[in-house]
């Protein structure tokens, strides 16, 4: 609201602060519900119906259905919560992280093996 938020300007990075947390509250709590096997099964059986049980926005629901994690982040999702969707789908954390970068799974894996994404030098 008025405290400095310099972390808003880091490219390709969404900081999960109170503002994002408020926006994504039900999206994240929905993700948390996937920690129970029962809920995972109900979600898999009918994603739309399960999502409709939560006070999420239509955008949030669609982003989940599309497995568009970047969109989920923008809409207030936090990666540790969103990871429960990946777990439900049987994905690893590396597959999830890679899916947000625009690279293929193979490309991302190779980038990591080669030492990861290089930081952009500070003063240029």
């Amino acid at each position, binding site marked *: 609201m008025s405290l400095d938020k310099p972390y808003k300007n880091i490219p390709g990075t969404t900081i999960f602060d109170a503002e994002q*947390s408020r926006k994504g509250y039900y999206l994240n709590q929905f993700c948390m519900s996937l920690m129970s096997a029962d809920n995972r099964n109900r979600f898999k059986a009918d994603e739309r119906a399960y999502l409709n049980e939560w006070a999420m926005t239509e955008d949030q629901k669609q982003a989940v259905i599309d497995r568009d994690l970047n969109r989920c982040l923008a809409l207030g999702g936090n*990666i540790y919560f969103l*990871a429960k969707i990946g777990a439900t789908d049987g994905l690893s954390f590396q597959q999830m*992280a890679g899916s*947000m*970068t625009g690279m293929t799974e193979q490309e991302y894996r190779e980038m990591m093996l080669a030492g*990861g*994404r290089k930081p952009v030098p500070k003063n240029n």
Partner: protein
Amino acid sequence: MAKITASVYTSHVPAIGAALDSGKAGEPYWQKVFSGYDYSKKWNKDNIPDVVFLIYNDHANAFSLSLIPTFALGTAESFPIADEGWGARPVPVVKGHPELASHIAQSLIQDDFDITIANELPVDHGLTVPMSLMFGEVDEWPCYVIPLHVNVVQYPVPSGARCFAMGKAIRRAVESFDQDLNVHIWGTGGMSHQLQGARAGLINEKWDNDFLDELIAEPEKLSKKPHLEYVEEAGSEGIELVMWLMARGAMNLEKEPIVKHRFYHVPASNTAVGHLILEDGI
């Protein structure tokens, strides 16, 4: 009198747990990671602590957004293994030390640290992966564990300086406990990694190694590093490293520590793995 004699620092990548639990530890990819802990397992055998004070962060397993404690100290008899969505890791239940933990809690609160006391705390990979790395695959953990969860999920997280100061307070607390106990303190999480967005996969090898150098030699100075630098240089999840400063603050700061072991490797899944063992200087 109880004493903190050593500190251990290590990343706590979930994929390491998954590799161990699915029998992939022998693969070359993972061997490179585990090789960094061979010395540590031996060192542990010779230096087995009575209690490990284990600083980690929960990753949306014990804590949702309903309640977000900045610091949560586990004072229970035991801590169950969390099911993070892939099923609970097949590792032994973690046994606490309620007496020492409550003593530390009392001392910290009287020292103006506004901690939350947790008596029901399922522990996730943040705590169990370091234990597997340090103790190997065992039927029972060889010592008691006092878990301290630090919020590094929702901003703002506590500053490095706050964590460092709390480390000092933990040392004071341990030293005022009147049983003879050998206590190790572990700081976990890090090193550079980013799990989200277009910049996922960021690794900053130079920054990480500078961090290790400074953690050993100039921790007080390092503790003043602002959050923003962690995020910019070490990725959005690199902020976990503030937890290492808490463990470092609990060491004897009058003397240079003895570096028993140092290890750095890229990658484990999305993350740079860093690991240090420091003993109190004499």
